[in-house]
């Protein structure tokens, strides 16, 4: 995969271990986010308050964890030992609830503390840094489709890019087939469905309707009380640094003073009112080429870099 020049996060793909589907064990990681589920919005100034007990894992995140457990069981049965790790972005307040996950069959819970608000791409980069072979060594990553707090569902896509893995997002059903393989169902327009055959290494995201998280047995719940969850704090100095956060918008263009004898012609020259506008183009290209063309055009308009367009 090509990393386009000038992408703001300047990421380098961290490739998942290819062909690990054949190795002795498979690590499945459910990436979830501790989010405000019932935000309190001040009707006057629109500020979002946090209720002390209003946060939790969304239904799609819980579905991701349950899917991970189901897949791990199926893969283990078909001969490849598989285990589930939950990687949760969230504050310390999440620990008690995360500890309960250790009772449902999750092997390991890692809580990731992201110190600043970050873009989806940066979040994905932070997650990817933990998912690499040196750390969690994830062969399959399962996310909830959209995070509950105004998410757009783009983190899994960025993550797949970062990890150089295949992706199947927004799934409404999945079924493990053989070791390291699964069949996923995705919604298309017009009530149609698309069935995808996914082979690890892969990043998938699921809707909340896919599964409900199982209930832990009483004995496991009691045992989980003494287990510890791991915590990793990612500060600005590693691995990415956020300089500033703002919406993307074109940089101002520097224009030469308009030429013309009278005011009207100068205004026309300045506004380009009677000149032909940017012509639309229709291109028929391969997906890769199309992506390149779109990026090229965006860059030409000044969207993708801080420098003024040439």
């Amino acid at each position, binding site marked *: 995969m090509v990393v386009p020049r000038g992408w703001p996060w300047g990421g380098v793909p961290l490739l998942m271990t290819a062909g690990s589907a054949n190795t002795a064990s498979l690590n499945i990681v459910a990436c979830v986010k501790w989010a405000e589920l019932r935000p309190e919005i001040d*009707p006057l100034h629109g500020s979002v308050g946090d209720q*002390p*007990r209003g946060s939790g894992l969304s239904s799609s995140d819980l579905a991701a964890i349950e899917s991970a457990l189901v897949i791990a069981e199926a893969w283990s049965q078909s001969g490849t030992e598989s285990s589930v790790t939950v990687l949760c972005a969230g504050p310390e307040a999440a620990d008690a609830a995360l500890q*309960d996950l250790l009772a449902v069959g999750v092997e390991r819970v890692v809580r990731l503390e992201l110190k600043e608000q970050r873009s989806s791409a940066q979040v994905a980069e932070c997650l990817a840094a933990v998912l690499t072979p040196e750390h969690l060594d994830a062969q399959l990553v399962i996310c909830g489709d959209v995070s509950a707090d105004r998410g757009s569902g783009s983190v899994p896509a960025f993550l797949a890019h970062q990890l150089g893995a295949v992706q199947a997002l927004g799934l409404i059903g999945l079924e493990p087939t053989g070791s390291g393989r699964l069949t996923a169902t995705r919604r298309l327009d017009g009530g149609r469905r698309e069935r995808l055959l996914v082979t690890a290494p892969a990043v998938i995201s699921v809707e909340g309707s896919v599964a409900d998280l199982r*209930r*832990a*047995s*009483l*004995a496991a*719940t*009691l045992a989980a*009380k003494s287990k510890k969850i791991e915590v990793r704090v990612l500060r600005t100095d590693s691995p990415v640094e956020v300089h500033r956060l703002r919406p993307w918008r074109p940089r101002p263009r520097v224009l030469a003073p308009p030429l013309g004898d009278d005011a009207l012609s100068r205004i026309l020259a300045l506004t380009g009112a009677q000149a032909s506008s940017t012509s639309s183009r229709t291109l028929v290209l391969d997906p890769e080429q199309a992506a390149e063309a779109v990026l090229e055009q965006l860059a030409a308009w000044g969207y993708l870099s801080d420098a003024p367009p040439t």
Partner: protein
Amino acid sequence: MSNSDVPDVDVPDFDVVVVGAGPAGSAAALELARAGRSVCLLERGPYPGSKNMYGGVIYGRVLDSLIPNWWEEAPIQRWVTRRSTMLMTGNQALTVDYRSNTWGEAPYNGATAFRPDFDAWLAAKAEAAGAVLICSTTATGLLRDGQRVVGVRTDRPDGDLTARVVICCDGVNSFLAKEAGLYPPSDPANYTLGVKETIALPREVIDERFAVRGNHGVDIEILGCTGKVPGGGFLYTNAESLAVGLVLSLPELAKCGRRPEEILAELKSHPAIAPLIEGGEVKEYSAHMIPEAGYKMMPELIGDGILVAGDAAAMCLAAGIWLEGVNFAIGSGAAAGQAAARAVQRRDTSTAGLGDYRRRLEANFVMTDHRKLKDAPHLVMSDLAQQQLPRIACGVMEQLFTVTNPEPKPGLRKIIRSQMKLNNLKLRDAISQGVKALRTYG
């Protein structure tokens, strides 16, 4: 269940299982953990307090011995420094308003709080002392060996939990105490329904409207606001919200043909209440049942291997001028915890071995107050208190302070007599009820 199903009770999972992490359960678990017993605190909600709702004030004196200087850390909303009692009719209100600023200083008297905050705090205290808190787990039944209770069954997979003693703090519906046969068949007349709106308002607006400052607050108890249904109302201040609600007698509510929120809407639009809550936004609506009849509806508190405390044992005190519950829950829970700890230590958790629980309750305020005020709930719910008293009181005030020039002022005796006549109250009834009230409260 048959004996063969019962797991080995010689080595139970815990010394004691406490069902319900409300104030009673947490107090019991705290005492047990401090006494060095292994204790499991079960909570069916996702966190302690998530199922709990009340009508306003926590009186914390009972906490002094459990948690020294509790007021420095308890998550409270405001300290009550104004306590009002309001008698109202459709468009009149007579208020007795008492203010004491000493209630706003340590060691304080009463506080308003959100139960999810307060109950979770108290449960965390028990946890810190060594109790094992398990949330999101409903106790569905008792495990028994013959008549003896040897644990609880929960709705989790593989969910049996054995113990030497089970303490039921599972609230007003207490299915466990009923299953243990400690309750006679329930009479709906012993219960009331509480409904409440939490209404968000800015702190400054509350301070202005209720004439309080800082973390000082108000608690208003209201009589005569429930139409034909016996009951009462309340309005109290949180830090940045108000709570306004009603308590309604169950059988009469079922008969009256009006829904609880309609009666509440009427209270909210009363001229004495509307200006206080105006412009607020409903933040949360809640409802809960109350064991109103107190002493007279209490179950057997002790069985073989089982104790009952808090609302499950009808420890709520609804005595008109005193409306308390959380303190009685904590008081009874703590006593149950101490008694169970002693019984476990002495290896006798039979009904007799647990008899210490009752002795402890009798020795402190819990049973003493309840026994003394055993007639109060009935008195408060009587027609005289509910219908005639508010009307007569307001009518007397109306006549007393309406200047009737050029007619001369009527005498007070004449006013009272005419109001009693207007409201069909005979002097004999008034005196007999008055004597009863004096005997109850005196």
